[in-house]
């Protein structure tokens, strides 16, 4: 079986990392309610 081509090792920064905590939310708890969505875009 043919071996795969050996590619040069590369190291890159992939993206930005965000630690998720509730701190920093502008409206904690303000954006949800019980029950299914009944309309969109309002």
């Amino acid at each position, binding site marked *: 079986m043919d*071996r795969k081509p050996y590619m040069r090792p590369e190291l890159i920064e992939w993206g930005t990392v965000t630690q998720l905590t509730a701190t920093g939310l502008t409206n904690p708890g303000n954006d949800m309610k019980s029950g299914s969505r009944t309309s969109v875009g309002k």
Partner: protein
Amino acid sequence: MIARSSRRVFLVPPRRDLPGRLGGDPRSRTEALARAIATDPILADSGATLIVGSGPDPHIAILGSFDASVAARIEALPDHLDHVLPSLRYVDYRDVERDVEHLAAKLRQRLGALEDHRFRAIPRGGLIVLGMLAYALDLDASQLSDADDDRPLVLVDDVALTGARLRRFLVESGSKPFAFAHLYSHPDLRAAIETAESTLAVAAADLVDRAPERLGGRYEAWRAAWRARSDEDYWVGLVDQLCFPWAEPDISWWNDVGKRVEPGWRLLPPELVLKTRHGAAHTADVQIMERGTGHVRPTERALAADLGDEVVLVDVVGHGNLALSGSWAAMWRALVATGDLAAAADSVAEEYDAGSEQVLEDLHRLVDLLRGQELLEVTAESS
């Protein structure tokens, strides 16, 4: 216009408040939460990958290329967890049977003799409750027929959160129930239904509204905003999250970036919820990291996502990240699989067109780099 996406990693720190129903220890509970999150249709459509770390109390990482609307949804996850987890209760079939008997007693008390009533259910949860209720009330088969006759109708559902499902039934069927029976609801919702529709609303047990306490001075503005968005609702609240074995009750979430109402996050894994198990068209990829047993293994602070052409390493302590591509991705996989430097070098040299010396040299560079960042640990036997 095509929304711009950017590559993001979101880290969900270990949580101490995951319910025991999710697993016997923090790690298995975190794995279950990750599998629940992965069933989110918006997250699945975005092509996200979820990673659960290798430690006993691991982080979850959510990786992907997300537009601003999906990123905002993920950023709201902790708030969702903070609100829902304290009030989440799994109502199993035995609990349901008990509460169906409570409901049957209340129906007899409020309606008297029921022989002249007919019963229908709101699909799908209502069908399960009505099936049990039919036994608890010893209903005749003729009382369960769909025939639209003059007998007073008792409409059955599993839970009533806003009354929107009742309103849809009224619109679609054109018939008005004499009574709306369900297992759980808030008393104010039942009062609103009785006032608006002259339909008796009967529940086995009350739900508690957490919104006034949680929102404080913002409560009235919150309520007004949701009343404006939800024209089918008789009542708006944030009640305890009672999850059935067949479905997790809906929560609506306002995405202020996407400017639309979206479904809230699911917090129970597919094995606990019939609807999630069979209803999700597809789920986000979930990768569970193993601790490893060899001389070379990832540290607990390393989360590794294998994206196929590259491996992304995320540092849960320093919050940095880096992607290994080319031969280094193959080397990482070989190191994790073998736990041994020499074995990893042999494995890569066998698979790739390179000399052993070249592979070993590159492998040492990789190991030195990752050890320096405390993402990889090497015991004395191998170093």
